[in-house]
């Protein structure tokens, strides 16, 4: 029961933002969105059909978060 846990957001390569911790997500109308689970994935590619949640569509559109997609090791 770590509802008080500080929020943490993880940016997933070529994918969504994973959000953990005590966060309220507010919709367009100002109402708090139903929080479906303790860890949620927020759409980052813009193509999800269930925004603001991720539905995996980023894989279909080959969404890339790489600054220079051809660059390998840093």
């Amino acid at each position: 029961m770590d509802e008080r846990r500080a929020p943490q957001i993880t940016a997933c390569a070529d994918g969504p933002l994973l959000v953990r911790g005590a966060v309220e997500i507010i919709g367009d109308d100002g109402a708090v969105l139903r929080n479906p689970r303790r860890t949620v994935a927020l759409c980052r590619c813009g193509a999800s059909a269930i925004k603001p949640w991720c539905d995996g569509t980023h894989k279909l559109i080959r969404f890339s978060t790489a600054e220079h997609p051809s660059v390998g090791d840093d």
Partner: protein
Amino acid sequence: MTIADIAGGPGVRPAERGPVSSLLLSTLDHGDPAVPVPTALLHATHVAVAAADDITADEDLQLSLFLLYACAYGSLAWIDPEWEWHPALLQMRTAIERSFEDALRRETPIPALPRADAADIAAALFALTAPTPGPSLGRYVAKHASLEQAREFVIQRSIYTLREADPHSWAIPRLTGRAKVALVEIQSDEYGAGRPERMHAEIFARTMRGVGLDSTYGAYLDLVPATVLASQNAMSMFGINRRLIGAIVGHLAASEMTSSLPNRMYADGFRRLGFGPDVTEYFDEHVEADAVHEQIAAHDLAGSLGEDRPDLVPDILFGAAACLAVDGRAADGIRFAFEAGRSSLRPGPDTGLLRMPPRKVASRRAVHG
């Protein structure tokens, strides 16, 4: 009568599919775990394993392996728990497992191995499981499946889904640190995160009842072909054997990564057939949940495990590739039957019954067209 009438209650024994399952069923049903098992059982197993040219599709051996795992899961209540650690049954299970594992390792193409680095492992798993164009069971269910086919699909899925997440839970005590935390985070969601009615297996049970089917585990076991049992047996084998810890982690990652997009198609298919949220909730839940789980599974579970245990990287990739291979084969078998206008199920007591409408489909709304 309907498919639901074919199904038995929790005490109904499945039918044998050959000499090994015949002997095993009579042992489990009438034998005494306190006395030695007839040597004929192990002998028949060795003979059948040696003769099997395609163990993934071998009805007799896959049913036998499924029953041997049921001894450990407790999923079939009529099996005496004393059988779980019976040496002869463990020997028998090992004989089938070694042959099944060898076949999977022989037949599954593995991509080039990533470095033992979490980001590289995650990228390799996402590349391996990337969505592919072309015909798929998901597209078929979305666009074409009839009511009968949709119900068959639910029956085929029930072997895993009424026990959803259980095969991967065997891995929890075998992991430590970050990978263990990641697996438990996923499994907690699978098991309802404190709310029994949110357990995925329970949500699926509502889907079954919503399409007029019996949600008792194993009710339709006799109708489910070897390739579908093989999909379940592969994950049970990876999960229950500690030496295959890398494979079960890779398996979970691949199954999460290939879930969100097909589940959207399944949900669309059931909506097209006129079903309401009590039936589609399971699929809709997985669109959303597995988009979370796949990230945790790729980076925090498989990635962390590979970083901490570089020796496991090959098996992580093997488990993922084997998941795609066995699940793909099971799904293709179902789709090919549907496309040919055949039932995807094994012949039951009276397969003519499958054309009948469901017993009770309370949630079904008026279907347009």
